[in-house]
């Protein structure tokens, strides 16, 4: 069975993955104008600077949308079905896509408060996960 998809980080994206490995969600920030962007990319779309630094996300999030995966598009995820993929708004102005933990989709509404957590998969890759805030 093919394993789960693994990232092949570029120099621009490696700090994101290194951050996750330490249990921190790192977001790329333009060193010139301060705009935070996600997913990581070489250029700031506002001021076109290629200088960037990284800031740690607050860990807060709210529900924007979601889906529940039922069909096994990939054999390595079959055992986890059904799983909930949440699209979450971050107060930093970008969004995060991550699996929901410790709740079902019935609990979700746009704007529902979430907390970002971290979890290593069987291949040792640390990924963000989302939980209901206050739960």
């Amino acid at each position, binding site marked *: 069975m093919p394993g*789960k*998809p*693994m*990232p*092949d*980080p570029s120099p621009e*994206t490696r700090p994101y993955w290194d951050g996750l490995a330490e249990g921190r969600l790192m977001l790329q920030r333009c060193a010139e104008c301060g705009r935070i962007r*996600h*997913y990581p990319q070489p250029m700031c779309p506002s001021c076109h600077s290629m200088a960037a630094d990284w800031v740690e996300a607050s860990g807060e999030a709210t529900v*924007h*949308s*979601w*889906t*529940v*995966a*039922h*069909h096994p*598009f*990939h054999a390595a*995820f079959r055992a*986890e079905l*059904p*799983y909930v*993929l949440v*699209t979450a708004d971050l107060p930093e102005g*970008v*969004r*995060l*896509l*991550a*699996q929901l933990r410790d709740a079902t*989709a019935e609990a979700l*509404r*746009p704007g529902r408060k979430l907390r970002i957590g971290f979890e290593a*998969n069987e291949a040792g*890759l640390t*990924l*963000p996960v989302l939980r209901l805030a206050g739960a």
Partner: protein
Amino acid sequence: MQLANAAAVTGVGDTDYTRDAGGRSVLSLQLEAALKAISDAGIQPRDIDGIVMPSPSSPVVAEELVTNLGIPDLRFSTGTPLGGAGPVAALQCAAAAIAAGICSHVLLTLGRTGRTGQRIGARIQQMPQFRLVGEFEAPSGALAPAQYYAPMARRHMEMFGTTSRQLAEIAVTTRQHAILNGNARMTTPLSIEDHQASRMIADPLRLYDCSLESDGAAAVVVSAADRARDLRRPRVLLAGMAEGHPDSPSAITQRGDMTRLGLAKAAPRAFAMAGVTPADIDVAEIYDCFTYIVLCQIEDLGFCGKGEGGAFVEGGALGLQGRLPVNTHGGLLSQAHIAGMNHVVELVRQLRGEAGRAQVPDAEVGLVTGYGDLGDGTLAIMTRG
């Protein structure tokens, strides 16, 4: 140089649409469709002097068409790498090349062996336009178009109260049209209850919200409008065309308003070029990889306001006697997933009055859309003339 009405679709052709083409190559399917389209136009293969390949992921390149068809003097060859928006983008590209005087008869073909080849969902991770979702979303389990698009549909439902039964209306009407077509993969009636009972793929998208991986090919010939007057079939003019790209084109997750597609930017341009409004449209072939994508495009085209698509499609509104006949051939949902090239073929047949049992009476103005690669949108408005 003016693009409106500079070119016309003069020939259309397609193969049988099947679940499995019995091991035939994509090239052989495309050649069959191409030869039919060229013959339909009343010209010879040697008259073709332009080729636009609407799908970059096709294993067929223009040189193979030249070699097999014996085209002696190809003057224009390019591609439109917009996924399912590619065929309609290719119409605009062909018309622009013709309007610029580069060529006179442009061949567009698209074929696929979706089932016998690799599945679409397995292929997508390797495509460069999906690099961001491949790196940042696939590891969490977002792996296929149904999973990318389902959050758009869910957001629409949460914001506007759109329901799964409304999506079912689209699937049911499209199936009715496929049954009338005679060259469609799905030939048994579908009810709203059948749709509601079908298994969930990626909530809120059920099995019958999803299109059919298929084998087959379709082709069209686009010719200079002045040359088209002398050809075999009634002329179908390319009156208005446009393409539009959504905000955050490479990641739906990061798109400010994920209920707005690239088509919303393209539609006003194409309607203005054609000098018509949505109220003038007699028939619409709307890209339907998923039912929700049809609903969203109906809004982005301006047939109703944002959020009103659910109510718009109710009560058989998209049927032959409805207020907007849509996907009169059965679409990707029930005819075959030929990446929307079959939608182009069907619109031309409708405007010529050749659509058989699914003919919309007196169809004179119609549109065809393309949708692909996470939200790119294309639109062509055609008129009988």
